């Protein structure tokens, strides 16, 4: 459900290599405000690299990456950190801090970046977010006591605590059972509606893509080979690799 034609992310002619391995080879991509964009591709095709460049964890070799009107590669540390506050990054393995409880995990970004909040306000905010991801009872648990799906939900709740404008989901359904996958997919849709975010979902799971995405983009050989709605991309796909990507997922589901 795209709200406006305002672009929140604009990627132009992006190249990234690791030694001899060429990962991104002239990638162009736009994310519109309020949109859920799914980036599909095989493992190792550079999907995660793309969103890591978006938050400044990696730097591109050439090309431009504009996020909320800022050129990420040319930002100083302070400006980059300010931009990062507007981007929520949900990691593939949740990346919850092992040594902290769920409460401390969620407090971590908040107490460091939002001043003048009372202890009560922080607790209320954490409880509200845990409620919205359906895990209010986990507040004092350690990450090691949570299941994979619960970790993902808490990871998403932690990124939402700073009320980001853009959400980046890195393989949100990887390693989860089919029922939990559907729960996570529903959560991604719910977050967009509840918190009015624009999102990029990185996945190779077509069920996730279909359920969460307004638009799909298929990354193959370092370039987007197809973009459009789910039907536009896969119904009668001309590129054999895009077609086989669909067939493979279909057979496996």
């Amino acid at each position, binding site marked *: 459900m795209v709200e406006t034609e305002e672009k929140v992310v604009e990627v132009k002619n992006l190249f990234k290599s690791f030694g001899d391995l060429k990962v991104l080879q002239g990638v162009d991509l736009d994310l519109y405000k309020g949109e859920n964009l799914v980036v599909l591709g095989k493992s190792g095709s550079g999907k995660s690299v793309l969103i890591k460049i978006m*938050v400044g964890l990696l730097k591109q070799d050439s090309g431009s990456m504009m996020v909320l009107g800022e050129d990420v590669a040319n930002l100083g540390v302070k400006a980059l*950190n300010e931009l*990062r506050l507007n981007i929520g990054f949900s*990691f593939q393995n949740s990346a919850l801090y*092992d040594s902290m409880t769920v409460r401390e995990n969620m407090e971590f*970004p908040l107490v*460091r*970046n939002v001043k003048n909040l009372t202890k009560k306000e922080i607790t209320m905010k954490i409880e509200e977010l845990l409620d919205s991801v359906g895990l209010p009872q986990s507040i004092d648990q350690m990450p090691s006591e949570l299941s994979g799906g619960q970790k993902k939900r808490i990871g998403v709740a932690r990124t939402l605590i700073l009320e980001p404008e853009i959400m980046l989901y890195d393989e949100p359904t990887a390693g989860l059972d089919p029922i939990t996958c559907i729960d996570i997919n529903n959560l991604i849709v719910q977050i967009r509606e509840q918190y009015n975010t624009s999102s990029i979902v990185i996945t190779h799971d077509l069920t996730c893509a279909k359920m969460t995405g307004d638009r799909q983009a298929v990354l193959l050989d370092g370039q987007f080979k197809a973009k459009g709605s789910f039907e536009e991309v896969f119904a009668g796909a001309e590129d054999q690799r895009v077609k086989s990507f669909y067939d493979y997922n279909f057979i496996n589901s």
Partner: protein
Amino acid sequence: MAEDKDDKKPFLSKKIDKFFTGLASAYRFVLRFFKEVFVPPYEFKEVVQQCYRIGVESLPLISLTGFIVGIVFTNQSRPSLEEFGASSWLPSLISIAVVRAMGPLVTALIAAGKVGSSIGAEIGSMKVTEQIDAMEVSATNPFKFLVVSRVLATTFMIPLLVMYTDFVALMGSFLSVNSKELVSMSTFFVQVFESISFLDIFSSVLKSLLFGFTIGMVGCYKGYNSSKGTEGVGRAANSAVVISMFLIFIEELLALQIVNAIRTW
């Protein structure tokens, strides 16, 4: 292309390349520590937490080891001194050995095993599970939060642990001395303090600061640069201990030369 070139290099040349690349990377890491340590925001809470973990949680092991070292060293030294009829010098000998060398060395080696490996494994596991990246994207400087706080904590806590080890070892020695002949605690400690100089204590504290810095820095460096999944975490913890111990002995040797030069000056 670069990898092809590397593959053609002889084994020894590759090893030398790797050694100097590692050295340069460690140098940059240490330099980054000194750049970040003075710049706000300061992670006081994390430093205090790490001081507690490194200091208080090491006390049982340090107490036991220090006490045993005191007893063993006293029992081993006694026969030699008795041969020369100098067994009354036992407290002096023990105090000089413990304060000048054994206290700092034993504490540092135990801390390298216990604290260094735990820092290496903890940060290494955070690295491979993307927890460090998660910190970075939530606008927190992970180097400051994880590395600076731990290195400061080891640097402050190791000297305190060394002083504690010295005390416990001397208590062990006192008990050992008393098992053969009756010596009051005040007589024992008067002899202890008469034998050690300000330079002994000062050099011991300075050396301990350096040992603490080394343990923290090597553990953090190895953890922060670990790769290859869980195998890399194990390697980081292991090499943190091995390299820390190696550096501690080198530092001990250098410190001994410097202090001896000052003593004879």
